[in-house]
């Protein structure tokens, strides 16, 4: 199966250019004026085998054409997802389908029906990304191994057919003295070429590592994509919300009850023209209030010992901290972000027990809306019992009082008021600006006195153990892409044939750079600068077009 070249080197089946001397081994390549040097004419699996189903799959994914198509399709699909907002950016108060239909009419409805409102997590978008991943792996493997072989096996003395089919190629007379050769080598060395000499022939080469750039960056991308999949491994990713009222202490989710957080204070600060300088004056006039800071002053506690059910855990203070946007609090690989807030949430309500007719008061009660007591005893035989409590009151579908949530947005109570002259008690339903006496006219009432409010901080509790992976993938990608983009692999072959010297040059990109470098390197050596054979062709073509 292997092909033995006349230079003695044994090449794998499918090799186009001998890995060692560069002789053209494929018949059809022999007619070409210039060689296709992209992968050094090495034997790529995809170009050699096409029999089994595995060959066919391999060949499909190893094609750059397929890769580019996958990129372009992904690109177009991504555009689709930006026409209307994705579902995570719309208000969550009504069903998504209604939102799209209300806002964008039939088009919104269609967008929703086609699943474009969640396009980036749709199975087919993920499939596209996965196919790009497969293409990355196969494309790279198909090329990098034979390319490595070819570059590793190349010898100094190259075949004539190889040299004259290089884009940069020229013939000169043999230098008259050794001095010129010394100058040449010194020039090349000063340009940081690595020189190999054999039998008076020279191979000058530099930056071969640039050839590995694409493969390195592909490895980086694959690591990145794997990192993206790790998100779905349990325990790698935490996304929890923690609403914390001022003064409240709660367990931090995802810490196994180890950590507790107390919200001491939540602040929203606006920019102030006087305090923050005149420069912002115009902008502030135009925009009105601009927020300067969202900040939660918190205290972090750690639990001591084991908690016994029903008992308050013993907490030890770890530290005080301020959580702002852009400044999350970090605990053991967990980060707490300031993301949301609620100002002036009802916290406590004060009522007095009053004689409806005389207005005489018999004591005040203060109800903690998040934790109301069952019974409030007033002096002299008066007391108030909280029979029912609806923190977020509404009438449900059956027309009965109910609560929408546990947040005291609209508190309502059923009180039973007991007085010395009403020992069996009077029942009264009290909501904001509303009092109902379901069992007939009462003598006493609960008169609203005052309200205390508190701010609430909305924190996101996040753990993302995939970040390390993604970071390493990104770093490797950047190294690879810089390696391939900022350095060029350049080679100059100089071969003595009879009384002539054949010169050929190759670079994987930036031909002008190589040409200018050769001009410098050949100065004072008596060698002619090789001609760009491709440019002759192009210029001929352009001229031909213009005149034709």
């Amino acid at each position: 199966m292997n092909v033995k070249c006349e230079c003695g080197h044994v090449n794998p089946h499918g090799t186009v250019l001998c890995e060692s001397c560069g002789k053209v081994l494929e018949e059809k390549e022999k007619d070409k004026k210039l060689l296709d040097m992209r992968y050094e004419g090495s034997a790529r699996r995809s170009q050699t085998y096409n029999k089994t189903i595995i060959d066919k799959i391999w060949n499909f994914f190893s094609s750059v054409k397929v890769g580019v198509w996958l990129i372009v399709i992904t690109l177009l699909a991504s555009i689709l997802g930006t026409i209307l907002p994705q579902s995570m950016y719309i208000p969550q108060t009504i069903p998504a389908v209604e939102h799209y239909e209300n806002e964008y009419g039939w088009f919104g409805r269609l967008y929703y029906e086609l699943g474009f409102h969640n396009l980036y997590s749709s199975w087919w978008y993920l499939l596209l990304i996965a196919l790009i991943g497969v293409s990355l792996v196969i494309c790279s493997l198909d090329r990098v191994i034979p390319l490595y072989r070819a570059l590793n096996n190349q010898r100094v003395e190259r075949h004539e057919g190889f040299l004259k089919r290089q884009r940069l190629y020229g013939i000169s007379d043999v230098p008259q003295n050794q001095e010129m050769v010394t100058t040449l080598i010194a020039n090349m060395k000063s340009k940081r070429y690595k020189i190999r000499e054999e039998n008076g022939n020279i191979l000058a080469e530099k930056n071969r590592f640039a050839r590995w750039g694409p493969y390195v960056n592909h490895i980086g991308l694959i690591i990145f994509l794997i990192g993206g999949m790790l998100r779905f491994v349990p325990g790698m990713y935490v996304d929890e919300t923690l609403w914390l009222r001022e003064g409240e202490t709660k367990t931090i989710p995802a810490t196994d009850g180890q950590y507790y957080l107390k919200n001491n204070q939540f602040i929203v600060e606006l920019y102030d023209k006087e305090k923050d300088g005149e420069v912002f004056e115009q902008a502030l006039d135009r925009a009105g209030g601009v927020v300067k800071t969202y900040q939660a002053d918190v205290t972090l506690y750690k639990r001591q010992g084991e908690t016994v059910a029903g008992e308050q855990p013993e907490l030890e203070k770890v530290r005080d901290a301020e959580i702002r946007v852009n400044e999350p609090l970090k605990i053991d690989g967990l980060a707490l972000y300031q993301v949301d807030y609620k100002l002036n949430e009802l916290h406590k309500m004060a009522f007095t027990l009053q004689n409806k007719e005389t207005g005489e008061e018999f004591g005040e009660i203060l109800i903690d809306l998040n934790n109301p007591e069952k019974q409030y005893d007033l002096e002299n035989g008066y007391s108030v019992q909280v029979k029912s409590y609806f923190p977020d009151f509404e009438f449900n579908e059956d027309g009965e009082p109910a609560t929408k949530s546990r947040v005291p947005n609209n508190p309502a109570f059923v009180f039973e008021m007991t007085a010395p002259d009403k020992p069996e008690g009077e029942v009264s339903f009290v909501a904001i600006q509303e009092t109902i006496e379901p069992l007939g006219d009462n003598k006493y009432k609960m008169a609203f006195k005052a309200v205390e409010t508190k701010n609430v901080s909305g924190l996101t509790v996040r753990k993302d153990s995939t970040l390390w992976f993604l970071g390493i993938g990104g770093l490797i990608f950047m190294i690879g892409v810089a390696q391939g983009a900022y350095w060029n692999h350049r080679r100059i072959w100089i071969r003595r044939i009879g009384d002539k010297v054949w010169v050929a040059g190759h670079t994987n990109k930036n031909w002008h750079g190589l040409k200018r470098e050769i001009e410098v390197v050949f100065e004072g050596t008596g060698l002619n600068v090789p001609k760009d054979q491709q440019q002759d062709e192009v210029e001929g073509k352009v001229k031909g077009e213009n005149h034709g």
Partner: protein
Amino acid sequence: MVELSGNLLYVAFIAYLVATAFFGGSIKAKKDGQKVEGKNKWAKLAIIITIIGFVAQVGYFITRWIAAGHAPVSNLFEFTTFFGMCLVGAFIFIYYIYKTPWLGVFTLPVAILIIAYASMFPRDISPLIPALQSDWLHIHVTTAALGQAILAISFAAGIIYLVKAVDQSVSSKRTFWLEMVMYSLVSVVGFILVTSGFSMANYEATFNYIDKEGVEAVYEYQIPAVIGPNEGELITDGRFEPLIETPAIINSKKLNTVIWSLVVGLALYWILRLVLRKRIAASLQPLVKNINLDLVDEISYRSVLIGFPVFTLGALIFAMIWAQIAWTRFWGWDPKEVWALITWLFYAAFLHLRLSKGWHGERSAWLAIIGFFIIMFNLIVVNLVIAGLHSYAGS
């Protein structure tokens, strides 16, 4: 400080204008055969003036930074101006690699247009909202802008390539699309003329209208409303009554501006055509007569090669790091994020087509133009129309 900063920007702007003329002169001088070899005096002067302009603009940037207390890349005016500055910087860099005055003739006008376009938006120094208060603001935004600017050099080179390579003796798809590119550039001039013209005339028309929530609202038009708002009622006396009324879902004010720009652009374009008596690209052809196409192609490719890693670093990697800190997640499919990804995918495809499919020369030039279109789309349309989390852009 703010005033000094503004003046420095004017200096830069004028320097770029003058430098463009000098670069043009350097090509003319060459053509007349006064001096054929390499750099001539005109080109030398031109690049010096460009550098003076660039230094002035860096001065604008630094003084504004000092005045504001944060890097001036936080609103549309600041970002776009900075992008223009990066474009000039990238041009100076590439100029010293390849020593090509003609690149200046095509790059500087693009930079001038970008800076003039930027000046049409509110120029106030705005305070930073909490999400922007981070060192990553200048790290992410400047790197991303620099990457885009280097990529934009390939657009200028692409235009040069096409102006030279597209056969103007017959009309074809190629001449049509090249004229479309020219028309787009002229439309930007149209936008600048319309906006600054009516602003100088202090035109203002107030409308009451019904917004998409069905609530009464007020629009202030700074240019005559050809396209009026939904159920709009003109309040200001003696102002132009709209010809067309739009449904509430469409932002009629923006649409009105776009239509004005396109129409004035079209008028300007045809005036130019009538004066020149040929296609704009055809009348630019003498400028590129002595240019080596191979070199243009290489500059275009090179700038993509240099710009792509910078863009990746700034617009994706730094962006992800900051998003993780500010928004709790490194990626959230926000429209700006998606369009950065689209740009990245596009240039990735560009590089693969070039490396493996041999898309050199004209094909590569067309791709460079599409790439720049995507970058501009991300800058203009995504900020102003699609919005999302990055919509600190303003009106």
